[in-house]
């Protein structure tokens, strides 16, 4: 874990964030219709706004300045942590996002933990057992092929409407989090358990597995104490993918369960052509993605020191 490695990763991270910001900026200015009209109301469709109001908005947001000047200001604000002003909410984008951040983070974190635990249980229980294995690989295929919102709708139908165990929507207490957590976790568990089981089976074939058994350890102890560690390595490389799935998944899950959160903010903003909010959410998600991924890469090198010496 050299300083050079960190510098390189940081450079790449900055490049990715800058690229995403530039693409977002281009998006803002490719937007069909006059942004001043969108701000004035009616999503740009109403043509009756007085020229005076539009001029005032243009002056306030600087829409008439040369593109380069606007780009420079956009980047300058971004560096200071300012994502601009929402077109529709009369609020800074940063405060729109930070108001909703907590509920989304709770949703995503809980789902990540649940998905991990579910896949671990599934993998440990089925690795190297042909019957259980083929059953669970069918389950995994179904989970991976099911859109998140459909999982949510099925869970709602059964557990909220039929059985009445959980609230139908809203956000009060742990009860209202169970189904959204499950909805996000199940598709993730489908993929993770597949990878974990393959890792476990490879570990169980190795000589050390036999040695452990010969020493008198039970099969379960072998799996939990010795083989799991080896199976976790490939899972770590999948964490980046899992993070992306989570960040995208919250958008859909928040809609299904009518929960407040970043995803809802983004969908509302897309429908209202509120581009600064959309780009703000995308940028925040991208930064989170880059930072967490870099951290995971570093962790990967700690867990498996062989990598540090080979890859530069």
């Amino acid at each position, binding site marked *: 874990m050299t300083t050079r490695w960190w510098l390189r990763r940081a450079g790449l991270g900055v*490049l990715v964030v800058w690229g995403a910001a530039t693409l977002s900026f281009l998006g803002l200015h490719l937007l069909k219709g006059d942004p001043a009209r969108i701000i004035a109301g009616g999503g740009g469709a109403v043509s009756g706004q007085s020229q005076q109001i539009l001029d005032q908005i243009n002056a306030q947001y600087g829409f008439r300045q040369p593109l380069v000047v606007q780009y420079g200001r956009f980047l300058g604000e971004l560096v200071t942590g300012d994502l601009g002003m929402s077109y529709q909410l009369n609020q800074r984008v940063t405060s729109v996002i930070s108001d909703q951040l907590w509920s989304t983070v709770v949703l995503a974190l809980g789902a990540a933990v649940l998905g991990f635990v579910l896949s671990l249980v599934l993998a440990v229980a089925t690795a190297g057992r042909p019957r259980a294995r083929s059953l669970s690989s069918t389950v995994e295929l179904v989970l991976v092929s*099911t859109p998140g919102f*459909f999982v949510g709708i099925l869970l709602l139908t059964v557990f909220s409407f039929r059985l009445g165990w959980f609230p139908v929507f809203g956000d009060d207490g742990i009860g209202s989090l169970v189904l959204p957590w499950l909805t996000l976790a199940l598709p993730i568990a489908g993929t993770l358990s597949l990878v974990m089981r393959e890792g476990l089976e490879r570990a169980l074939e190795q000589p050390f597995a036999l040695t452990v058994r010969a020493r008198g350890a039970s099969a379960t102890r072998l799996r939990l104490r010795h083989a799991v560690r080896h199976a976790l390595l490939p899972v770590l490389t999948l964490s980046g993918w899992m993070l992306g*799935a989570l960040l995208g*998944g919250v958008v859909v899950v928040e809609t*299904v369960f009518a929960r407040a959160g970043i995803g809802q903010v983004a*969908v509302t903003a*897309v429908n209202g052509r509120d581009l600064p909010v959309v780009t703000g959410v*995308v940028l925040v998600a*991208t930064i989170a993605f880059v930072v967490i991924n870099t951290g995971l890469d570093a962790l990967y090198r700690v867990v498996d020191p062989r990598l540090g010496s080979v890859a530069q």
Partner: protein
Amino acid sequence: MTTVEPAGQPLAAVRESGAGRRAHSIGPPLAVVFLLLVGVVALFPDLVGGNPEAVDPADAFLDPSAEHLFGTDQLGRDVLTRVVHGAGASLALGLGATALAAVVGIVWGLAAGLGGRFVDEAAMRLADILLSVPTILLALLVVAVLGPGGPSVAIAIAVSLSPGFARVVRVQTLVVDRTGYVQSATALGLRRRSVVGRHIVPNVLPPMLVLATMNIGASIIAGASLSFLGLGPEASSSEWGSLLSQARNYLQDAWAPAVFPGLAVVLTVISISVIGRELRIRFEGRYDR
């Protein structure tokens, strides 16, 4: 292409297919039959009969019965007819997005692989950037710029899938470019353009067919998700994601209008995955996403 494995397959392929157990699996034939069925009703929805927009308030929220196999929705419309009429839009979304992503990704990857150091570096960093934005969020951004609608959703999905294609095509191009036959062709004095056109491109493309197949399922899911969020074809459409989004609001009254379109999505995606896997085993390569 889809019959059971012939004898004498290389051991590697058999091992990858699960130690030969899958060789006699009924999965692939079933998947083909189901997809043929979906394909036929997508092209000729009127075969099933009935008008998907026929409203009958007296028959709203019926559970499945002999008359309405999939039940009825909040306006008394027949869910089976609506699912059948939505097949075309849903498949078109998934296939269109994948085709667009494949074409863009192939050109992108070939340019990176053959265009020299600078082009390669620029093309791959752009791919890195796009792959760092979570799929659904990137798609949201594109739809926000283009405005909602079926074509926007297809373009949005293609934008997020094409960097993946570009990476694989680039690697494949670099590999093919170093093979003996390409070097022989060059040594024989063929112009670079004909080497690329006759020897490199034809050998880069076939594995892309497998990758494309594996991506159709993901495209259908993404398309249905974006429609579910209300960004796809107009809200009253019978596209599967839209059907689910309408049914979501009436879950307390009826389960059928939500469950059947969802099952249609799941079964279609599973069938495509099964066939994609089979193709992959036959091509004997491993193309990671």
